[in-house]
Every structure is written in C-alpha cells, then in structure tokens.
C-alpha cells in the first residue's frame, strides 16, 4: 500500500518536473524571438554600419547580400537560432572573429566569479536570515532589517567605490583592478577578484537574507512549531530539526532568485574592476553595436536566469512531502 502511493508520488513529481522543464524551454524560445525582433529594430542595418556614411547604395546592397541580410526575417531568425543551438552564433563584427570564440574566452571567468560569490554569500545570508528570524521583532532583527533593506537599494558602484577607498587607497591591501590571465595561480587570482566578489556579495547577501528570514518566519507561525516549542525543544533544535526541513524549498527558491541578481549586478561590477567576464563583454557589444555578439550574450544570460528559476521550482516540487517518496 505504502509502496504504491510512494510510486505514484514519484510519478507525479516526475511529470511535474518534465512539464516545468518543457515550459522553460518554450519560454527560452519566445525570449529568443523577442531579442531577435528588438535587435532587428536597429535603425539602419549591420551592412550600413560597417561601411559608414560614405558608402554607395550598390556597395551596401552587395555587402548586405554577402552577409545574408537581404533574406526575409524569419529565414534569418531560423538561421540564427540554428547557429545558437549548434554553438555557432555568427561572427562578431567588431572583434572580427566567431562569437563563440569571444564568448568561450570570457564565460569561464564569469562562471568562476559567480561561483565564488555564491560560496561567500550563501552561508552568510543563511546565518543572517535564520538569526534574525529567531530574534523576530527583537532589537537585532530590526537592526538587520534596516541594514538589509538599505543594502538592496544601494547602487553597486557605491559599494565598489567604498571598497576601493578602504582596501586599495587607505589600506593598500588589494589592487583596484582585477587583472586576470590564464596562467595565474590561485594565490595571484584571489586578491584580484576579492573586491568584485565583495561588492557582488553585499547586495546578494542582503536580498537572500531577507527572503530566508521570510521563509523561516512563515514556518514559525505553523502549529507544529508551536507544538515543538510547548513540549520544551530548545530554540536552536526547533529551527534545525523542525523548521529547516520544511523551509528548505522556499530557501532554495530565495537563493536561486537572489543569485539571478548576479547576472545583472555583474554588468556594473565587471566594468568597474575591469574584470574580463561576459557582462563587461556585453556592455562593450552595446557600445560598439555588435549585434551578433550582443544577442548571444543576452541569450546566455536569459538561459542562466531560466535555469536558476527551473532549479528553484524543481526543488519545490521534490521537497513537497506530498510528492516525496517515503
């Protein structure tokens, strides 16, 4: 009897996960259409841009034909999408090399930065979030509330500026520019990225801590927690043994949401510290109007965002005790 119900539970969880995955893919496809359409709205096209004002109409028409810009939009879209999927999203106009190569150079740097930031931010945010939830309404909770509330609204460049003033101008501990190369050891790499990580962490921690606090407090109001408290379980045990197993889904959800902020925050932070990541590459693509590169970068960011949301939702599905196999 128990076996049958746990099997149907597994099956339901699997179905839900598959559905969720399919809907993410569909969304990504629609996002690609949106980005392609917006990029096509550019006044004048790439051929005109490349040749400048003085080009004759014939020259432009010839280049347009060469670049395949004279084909109908849906053909170009299919072409581009096929290229993205097969790992060849076209030619970067400014760098004059394949977009895939330009991105391959930058992407590992960005992933590393994100991973290190998550490594720093997640434990701190959990501690702050759970700590202030346990102290709900108390002095520490209110102080942390004001602090995190302020931190989420502070622009990244202020945090970065203050960090530079303290750590490289006054204390002279860290370089103010993140120099990164392939043959660096960790000992050389870490001081260079310490400040980008610090800057990104501040905002991520604030956001994640707020959502963790909300998730834990939501559980605290449930009758089972009151029961545990009344039978004399110590507060720390209540949180660890009773609340955490039930709050894990919303907390993972909160983490995925806050980490998605890294995608946007990195745009500013990578630029300030001159960190050679994907976000600063995208800013360069906007400045130089390198549309193939820009589209590819935008798609990577959107895919990363959707992946984080997918992870959050699937965790919620799997952590639901009604679906979890016993």
């Amino acid at each position: 009897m128990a076996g049958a119900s746990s099997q149907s539970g597994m099956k339901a969880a699997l179905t839900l996960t598959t559905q969720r995955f399919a809907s993410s893919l569909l969304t990504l496809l629609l996002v690609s259409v949106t980005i392609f359409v917006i990029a096509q709205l550019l006044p004048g096209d790439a051929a005109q841009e490349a040749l400048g004002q003085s080009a004759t109409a014939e020259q432009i028409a010839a280049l347009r034909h060469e670049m395949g810009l004279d084909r109908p939009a849906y053909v170009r879209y299919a072409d581009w999408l096929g290229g993205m999927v097969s790992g060849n999203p076209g030619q970067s106009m400014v760098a004059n090399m394949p977009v895939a190569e330009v991105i391959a150079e930058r992407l590992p740097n960005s992933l590393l930065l994100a991973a290190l930031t998550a490594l720093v931010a997640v434990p701190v945010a959990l501690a702050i979030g759970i700590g202030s939830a346990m102290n709900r309404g108390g002095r520490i909770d209110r102080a942390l509330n004001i602090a995190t509330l302020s931190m989420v609204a502070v622009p990244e460049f202020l945090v970065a500026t203050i960090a530079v003033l303290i750590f490289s101008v006054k204390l002279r501990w860290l370089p103010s520019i993140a120099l990164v190369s392939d043959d660096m050891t960790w000992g050389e790499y870490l001081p260079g990225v310490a400040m980008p990580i610090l800057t990104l962490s501040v905002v991520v921690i604030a956001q994640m801590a707020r959502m963790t606090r909300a998730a834990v407090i939501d559980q605290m109001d449930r009758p089972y927690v009151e029961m545990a408290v009344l039978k004399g379980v110590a507060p720390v045990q209540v949180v660890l043994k009773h609340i955490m197993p039930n709050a894990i889904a919303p907390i993972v959800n909160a983490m995925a949401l806050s980490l998605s902020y890294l995608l946007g925050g990195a745009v500013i932070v990578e630029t300030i510290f001159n960190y050679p990541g994907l976000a600063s590459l995208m800013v360069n693509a906007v400045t130089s109007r390198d549309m193939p590169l820009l589209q590819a970068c935008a798609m990577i960011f959107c895919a990363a965002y959707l992946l984080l949301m997918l992870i959050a939702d699937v965790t919620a599905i799997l952590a639901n005790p009604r679906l979890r196999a016993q």
Partner: protein
Amino acid sequence: MGAAFKRAKALPMSGKVGLVLVIFWLAVALFGPMLAPYPVGAFVAYDVFDGQSAAHWLGSDYLGRDVLSRLLSGARYTVGLAAAAALLASATGTALALTAAVGGAKVDEPLSRFMDMLISIPSKIFSLVLVAAFGSSLPLLLLIAAITYVPGNYRIARALAVNLAQMDYVQVARARGEGRFHIAITEILPNMIHPLLADFGLRFVFIVLLLSGLSFLGLGVQPPDADLGSLVRENISGLGEGALAILAPAVAIATLTVGVNLLIDALPGRGKGR
C-alpha cells in the same frame, strides 16, 4: 494637511528618516538648479579633484567644476526621469492588468503568458538590448526604463485585480449590467490603489538604480546633460585619490533609493519587496 502630518508622526523612526530623505530629494529636484552656487558647466576651481572647502562644499570635479552645483542639477535628471518612467510603467502595467481582469480568459491568457516571458529576461540585460537597438536620448531612456518594468507591475496589479474581480460587489455590479470599463475603473481600481502606490515606490527605486547604472556605463544620459550616475562615471579617474567628486554623487543616489525603501517598508500593509 493635518491628517498627513498625523500619519507621518505615526511612522516608525526608520519611516520618518525615509520620509525626510524623500522630501529632501524631491525639493532638490525641483529647486536644486536655482540653489546651485555656480553655473553647471563653469570651470571655477583652480585645482581638479579638490577636497571640501568653504568655496566648494563638495570639492571640484575632474575638470575643476563645482561638484555641489553639478549634483544639484544632476538630481533633477535622476529623480525626474525615474519618476516619469515609474509612472509610465505603473500606468501601463495596471491598465493592462485591469484589461486582463475584466476581459476574461481570452484576453488574460495571451497577455499573461507574454508578460511572463518578458519577466524572464533579467531587467539590466533587457535594457542593454533596448539601448543597443534604440540609442539613449532622454525620451528613449524614459521609454526603455518604463518598458523594462511594465511586466513586474503587471504581475502584481493583475493578481490584485483578479482577486477583486471575484468579489461579491463586483459580481453585483456586473449583474446590474455595468460595462467592463466602468467596472475596472470605478469598482476595482480604487481598491488596489494602496498596494499599487507601494509598488510604484519600488519601481522608482529599481529605475533610479537602472538609469544611474546605465549612465555609469556611459549608456544612459549623454553629455552635456548629466544625471547622478554620469557624475560618478566622469569622475572615475579620481577613484585612486579617493576624490569627493566620485563619492558625493554615489552617496546621493544611495540616500535617495534607501530613503524610498525605508519609507515604503514603514507604510502599513505594504506590498511585497523584491
């Protein structure tokens, strides 16, 4: 006036601080340029990146211009653009949400799917693509910031409106034979004004951060105009010497956004934050 004063007095300490900051920046945006001690573009100091002095309260910038004067006129762009964009985003999002709530599944389904799709593009990435496609003149920046934040407002306003549309008093209005437009405007909208105001404040904060971020990247407000983000950017070379010229505008933005956040958080029955 008396009622408003009473309400302000009932706010917790953090809310009062927020209110004071918000009023201060609104005043600066309105009257700042009149109070500026020097013309915005004039080279008035002998030295670049001067520190604080009696003649230049916030020092001088990378060209020897008065930072205080530039900040006082830059605030107008930051506050004005963001307020207009937040208003446009909220009005558009709410109008679409009301349409979805009274229009039935045929309108609601495609519209909500479309907004869900837009919301899954991170806002900074979305605005970067828009800037690349359209450019960044002042009206375009306003439009770009508004477009970027319509989906977020729509999602919240739709949730409110759909809930209200199920209420008995709306059903009664429908049975009375009121038109959809009438129901949306006179029955539903007045009951969602409070959470929408809180949401407007949040959009305003997001947009201030977005626009100053864009300006900081050199993709926002273009010279000779300068908002607070541009002031940070143009003085970035003073970072190594810890110049006041770069710190002052960055702190100015933070006090504005933190002020709005504190105020919204202190309001009773506020909407949910990010």
